[in-house]
């Protein structure tokens, strides 16, 4: 496996640069939340922004998530484009009613008269040794709500590009930042614009099976594909990027090519976003499939304490074990001359 890059731009730095450029580009953009001011956020994603743009544009708010989202809704009603940080996945829950009942629905309730260009930045997921309530993969709560765009970057370049696009977007965007990847690096020159966030992308082409994933698991999927390649199996990695609304064309095209699919996310499997992906692949690719679509994810348990979280988090081995279960031998009998259908 290739060593992780130690040079280039980290995802955290890319996000910071995206906020800086968005603030510089549009005076209606403002950034607020808990500890995002002089401290620069608990993950330093807003580092230096108050110093550069002033307290008027980047500031600390009272410690109240429903209030943060509610005021952002009001600001957007009057033409601002607030980007608010909800410090951790599980700390965003107090804002849930504002997100689901107002942020997501305002455009629809008012027949398009009121749009809410609000970005909710939510550091999410585990793998950083956080104590309880600091590691939830909360994406399915949001993707089940029509009206929200739910996006999550898997690379620093995407982190920059997708956050810029999210700020420019006239829909409310739940921008899920895979916090364990804040320190992942990539050689990329900023500013950069990658593919539109609504489009899934093929991160690594392959021919034998497709790994469909997003956010923190993109890196894991690529690691698994690298290992599989060394063992002679070619895995394609598709990064979904915008989870909702989903444009599944790239996903289904890939699975139709490869004939096998593993859906991978960090969240618990039961009722997770992967169930939607698997069902959709089943509906759209049934006649192309050589094996059932498998899901790989976290355990169906509350997020474990730090010393046990590695048992919960899917790693490349768990992915490869699933790939091994894709009925490689069942469909064809090798007769030495290209294979025969099994009777």
């Amino acid at each position, binding site marked *: 496996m290739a060593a992780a890059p130690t040079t280039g731009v980290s995802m955290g730095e890319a996000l910071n640069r995206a906020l800086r450029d968005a603030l510089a580009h549009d005076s209606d953009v403002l950034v607020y939340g808990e500890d995002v001011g002089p401290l620069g956020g608990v993950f330093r994603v807003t580092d230096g922004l108050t110093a550069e743009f002033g307290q008027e544009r980047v500031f600390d708010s009272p410690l*109240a998530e429903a209030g943060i989202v509610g005021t*952002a809704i*009001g*600001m957007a009603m009057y033409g601002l484009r607030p980007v608010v940080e909800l410090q951790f996945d599980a700390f965003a829950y107090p804002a849930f009613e504002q997100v689901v009942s107002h942020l997501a629905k305002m455009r629809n309730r008012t027949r398009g008269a009121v749009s809410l260009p609000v970005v909710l930045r939510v550091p999410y997921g585990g793998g950083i040794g956080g104590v309880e309530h600091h590691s939830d993969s909360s994406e399915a709560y949001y993707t089940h709500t029509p009206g929200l765009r739910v996006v999550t970057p898997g690379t620093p370049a995407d982190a920059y590009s997708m956050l810029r696009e999210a700020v420019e977007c006239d829909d409310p965007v739940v921008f899920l930042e895979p916090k364990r990847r804040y320190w992942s690096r990539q050689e990329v020159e900023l500013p950069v614009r990658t593919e539109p966030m*609504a489009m899934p992308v093929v991160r690594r082409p392959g021919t034998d099976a497709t790994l469909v994933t997003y956010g923190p698991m993109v890196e894991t999927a690529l690691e698994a594909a690298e290992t599989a390649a060394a063992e002679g199996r070619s895995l394609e990695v598709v990064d979904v990027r915008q989870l909702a609304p989903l444009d*599944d064309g790239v996903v289904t095209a890939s699975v139709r090519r490869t004939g096998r699919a593993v859906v991978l996310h960090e969240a618990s499997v039961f009722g997770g976003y992967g169930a939607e992906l698997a069902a959709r692949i089943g509906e759209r690719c049934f006649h192309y499939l050589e094996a059932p679509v498998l899901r790989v994810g976290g355990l169906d348990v509350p997020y474990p304490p730090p010393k046990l979280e590695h048992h919960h988090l899917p790693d490349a081995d768990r992915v490869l074990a699933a790939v091994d279960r894709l009925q490689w031998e069942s469909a064809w009998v090798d007769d030495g001359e290209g294979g025969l259908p099994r009777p």
Partner: protein
Amino acid sequence: MKHTDERPSAPALPTREPVRLVDRHGRRVGHSSFTAPDPARLVELHRAMLIGRRFNQQAGTLARQGRLAVYPSSTGQEAAQVGGVLALSDRDWLFPTYRDSVALVAHGVDPVQTLTLFRGDWHCGYDPHRYRCAPQCTPLATNASHAVGLTYAARRKGRDVAALAMMGDGATSEGDAHEAYNFAAVWNTPVVFLVQNNHWAISVPLRQQTAAPTLAHKAVGYGMKGYHVDGNDAAAVHAVVSHALAEARAGGGPALVEAVTYRVDAHTNADAPQRYRDPAEVEHWKERDPLIRSERLIRDEGLIGDAEETERVLAAFGAEADGIADTVRERLAGEDELDPRSLFTDVYATVPPLLEQERAALADELREV
């Protein structure tokens, strides 16, 4: 870094006795801090309340006839709604709840469009930007922080915009109310929170809602001024909300106004108030009807003119209110054509592929029917 324990001094506690400028017999009551609006405004308040009362009656009838899916009446609360709304300037925003139809009508929203929600045609029937009026809020107190954000944004854009954020007594128990009060006070945004204490949150009485001496007392903990007002006295509500708005505009901070009133009707037409409250209590409050006192004041003081002129103008107000109610009834007589394909248009700024597919599938279903 500067370390300081300096804090602003506490606002004065609201009075236990509500601010009242006109008593239930229509007689003026002197007050040390507030004076009643001028005669023209008092007459205007009465006119708007008459329209509101008639509107409540008409909407209630339409609900009983099944033309509205539901209607939450605000009969008895007209003074609180009209008194507050008429204090707004033509730049200010209203953030109403589902029980504030009378406030919407007084604010200038098309009366039929205020009923779209209850008719079941759509959620919000009007363009919020056109009327400077947020959608009627059904989840409790969640509209309050929107008012804070909107006025914050307006100030950032250099515009003099205040907001009236409405909620009921039950809503003050919600966390969103607390957060909105706190944000408004910390950010010093020009919002007046108008709490209509109508004593009942569906079936739960005020005493099971709060242990606060008055709801206005809640303001003090946020460093905000609280006013405890007779909510059936349109003159008092108008005077206090006007004062609070002026102070808030001038940078004096937001305020919470508790207007003590009473929900004379059921929660909605689907409610059964005889299960939880004594009819005698309703009768007690009917004697304190806001319209009775304003009409008495107008007649006794000759605010319109001599007796003949007074009769003529009051009759004209009544006819105007009837006319509005008639128009509402006529415009709601038929069924508007609702295109189910419009379900997909305003979910996102543009229709995403998945919704495009569902729209096509629904169109197929419609063709088959």
